[in-house]
């Protein structure tokens, strides 16, 4: 598996995501936001957490218009895989690859803590390492993680089984407790929690590791 991790000015989980991919056995290329093309042979694009462009204007909005993001959109439209974590999820909604938007947390504060997530019955390679209904603990760390979609879109996401994770105890006011959603073709996942921060015993838990290992299994042969 060849993973590309995009680096925007202000990204600060780029190394963490690269490490998680590498530990799962992937080859990782760091890709600068001013680049216009992804490296050849990339299977999956990782869009890391952080504060791309300082979160100015709107979280993820400027990054979504960067040169490399045009290439990420083309990659996804061709059926490529893309994983956006935290700020990466915000970027993916801003590009339109994923529906909805991330608003300010309901309590108006930044929240960093481990939270319980429920793995939803969502048929995607990202969840191959989990059982539907399984509860896992993954940290969140965001100021703007309050997921919003309108009722019609929510109904569609439910119908199409595109909700990947929900919060067991909603920390930020997200509609329908949604913590992560996938694209219609199930190859683009956006999630606010940080699986790369719960991937080694030293992190205090390894519930995030299954995502990277599941991806590796699925994409190693792809």
């Amino acid at each position, binding site marked *: 598996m060849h993973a590309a991790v995009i680096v925007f000015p202000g990204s600060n989980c780029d190394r963490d995501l690269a490490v998680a991919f590498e530990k799962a056995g992937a080859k990782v290329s760091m890709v600068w936001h001013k680049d216009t093309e992804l490296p050849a042979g990339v299977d999956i694009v990782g869009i890391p957490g952080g*504060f791309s462009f300082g979160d100015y204007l709107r979280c993820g909005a400027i990054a979504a218009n960067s040169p490399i993001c045009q290439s990420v959109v083309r990659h996804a439209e061709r059926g490529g895989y893309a994983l956006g974590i935290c700020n990466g999820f915000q970027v993916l909604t801003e590009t339109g690859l994923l529906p909805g938007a991330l608003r300010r947390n309901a309590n108006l504060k930044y929240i960093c803590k481990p939270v319980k997530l429920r793995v939803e019955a969502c048929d995607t390679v990202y969840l191959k390492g989990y059982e539907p209904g399984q509860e896992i603990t993954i940290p969140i760390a965001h100021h703007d993680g309050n997921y919003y979609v309108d009722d019609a879109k929510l109904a569609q996401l439910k119908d199409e089984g595109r909700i990947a994770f929900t919060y067991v105890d909603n920390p930020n006011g997200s509609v329908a407790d949604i913590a992560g959603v996938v694209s219609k073709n199930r190859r683009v996942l956006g999630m606010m929690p940080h699986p790369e921060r719960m991937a080694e015993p030293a992190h205090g838990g390894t519930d995030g590791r299954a995502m990277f290992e599941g991806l590796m299994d699925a994409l190693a042969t792809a």
Partner: protein
Amino acid sequence: MTEPAITEDLIEAHGLKPDEYQRILEIIGREPSFTELGIFSAMWNEHCSYKSSKKWLRTLPTEGPQVICGPGENAGVIDIGDNQAVIFKMESHNHPSYIEPYQGAATGVGGILRDVFTMGARPIAAMNSLSFGAVDHHKTRQLVHGVVEGIGGYGNCFGVPTVGGEVRFDPAYNGNCLVNAFAAGLADADKIFYSAASGVGMPVVYLGAKTGRDGVGGATMASAEFDETIEEKRPTVQVGDPFTEKRLMEATLELMQTGAVISIQDMGAAGLTCSAVEMGDKGGLGVKLQLDDVPQREENMTAYEMMLSESQERMLMVLRPEKEAEARAVFEKWDLDFAIVGETIAEDRFLILHGNEVKADLPLATLSGSAPEYDRPWEATAPAEPLDAATVPGIDPVDGLRALISSPNYAAKQWIYEQYDTMVMADTVRTPGFGAGVIRVHDTGKMLAFTSDVTPRYVKANPAMGGKQAVAEAYRNLTAVGATPLASTDNLNFGNPEKPEIMGQFVGAIKGIGEAVAALDMPIVSGNVSLYNETDGAAILPTPTIAAVGLIKTEDDAILGLPRDGHVALLIGDTQGHLGQSALLAEVFNRSEGDAPTVDLAAEKRNGDFIRANHALIKSCTDLSDGGLALAAFEMAEAAGVGIHIDTDDMAQLFGEDQARYLVACNFDEAEALMVAAGQAGVPIHSVGRFTGDQVSFGASSAPLSELSATYRGAFEEALG
């Protein structure tokens, strides 16, 4: 533009005493220009010159085989083996945080991060030590919210994990809150960057954000005349941009890889003035600056304003000229300013040109080296009357615990630290909430532990003992996670040093700190002094914050577990039941009486070494400090979600704050082995109870853990959320 004439009022407005002004006249042999007056005031104010404290700071132990660089550079550097170094410092941003809590605290974090990455280190951990006024004082809630959001807003965006800190509330801080920010970074030991310039005719390069009028006069106070001279008044508190700082850090570290950097210095207090003078002075060179080339974000800025601006996220570098193109490309990549603004010169001159005019022409070495130094009169703090224990009324011990954990001073602080990113970089092993913060040294088996401690009420009662105690508590917090303490940084917050009793507190605390860091081998490698923390003549509690760093050489040496049902609770160290100046006395009876507990440094060392030597027998460990055995036992049990039974119900045994003590949890076999080892080492050890069930009990007094936990977890937010 014509500069204003030098008048007595203008001199006074720059915080310069008449004798200090006389000295300036002697040094330059003429009347200074307005810009020159500003430069002198910036170099000679208390903040930059340490004129009241230098004499005493020199007495602190700063050396050891682990020390690569002690005080005098941007931050201290210590060796952690394998050609790796940790670079760290703590610095105050008290006054700005009281005026504008969000930006004051945010730029405090920004400043300390810059101090660390200026030396070539990537920041890997942050902490903060905060002191606020009374919980019910009308300013407190607003300050707490603003400061915490400011620290989070800056550190979270920058991407450094906040791994620890402390918070206290006392009416003595009603008019002066304290915000002390700590940062540590990691560098290769053979790639540390210093500030001394070298080579004549080398380009002086300005890096980072543009210069504005923010912070002009941050060191001096405005007067009527002053108003007229500054066209556009801006708050003296600077505004931070963590996004620019993050890019500046990445660009600086990348730049250092190119070999282009001869020397580098961040622009902190007194910005361009301090950084340029420092680089020149350390290199024995002069500096010429052409201010027209300084990137500016406001129009018509004067030389005075540019030399005194404290705009954030800026650095000054002396460049290897042949590497200019490469260096410039790095900054262009990160969309940051890169401008050659001057050069090093052979003469001892600080020459400032603007337009076609010479705005300042001063002897650089003298400007830097001849700042006034005072031996301020001081009065030793009178010995405290010991507390008469008979005057402490008996209360139910669980009620005593309840009173402590419902006070924001001792309640859980998750309302604060959940607003900080504690895990970015994915190397955090222990997040805040229980003892020292611990991170892995990336891609190695090593870990680093961080703690920040001081008990101001002890320092007030007995400055020397309180100073010792701050160091001892830091030593214990590092020891409790299995770390070997390596070095410390001190942030000395006091009132007005011109008052002999305040200066006496300062002198006493320094003596205590000095003795303790020598005995415990934790030399002071960096630090900061904040004086004049007074409002309407009322000083803060003397608050010499000690932040310290410890090394855990391998994962196996770490003590990071939590107690389990059935574990024995062992108390290491001697208990006399010292209730003077205790948390119990303060919180339950509102009394600040008695002396600080005695710190026996030999016992601290012996007990600490014992913990490290026997780490394999210890499942979980915490130090005993505020609230004594009762609070330590509760915190340990609460973190693990298991009940605790402590055999004694004696208030002094439970709540006494004797030093050099730890509470340890382990199973029976390990407990037996520890007892034997302790006997051999001459370390006092007692079985004091067991971790079991779902109750917290002290003798016959008990309450459900769940109830106490709810109080402990909810009290802070209830009072201040």
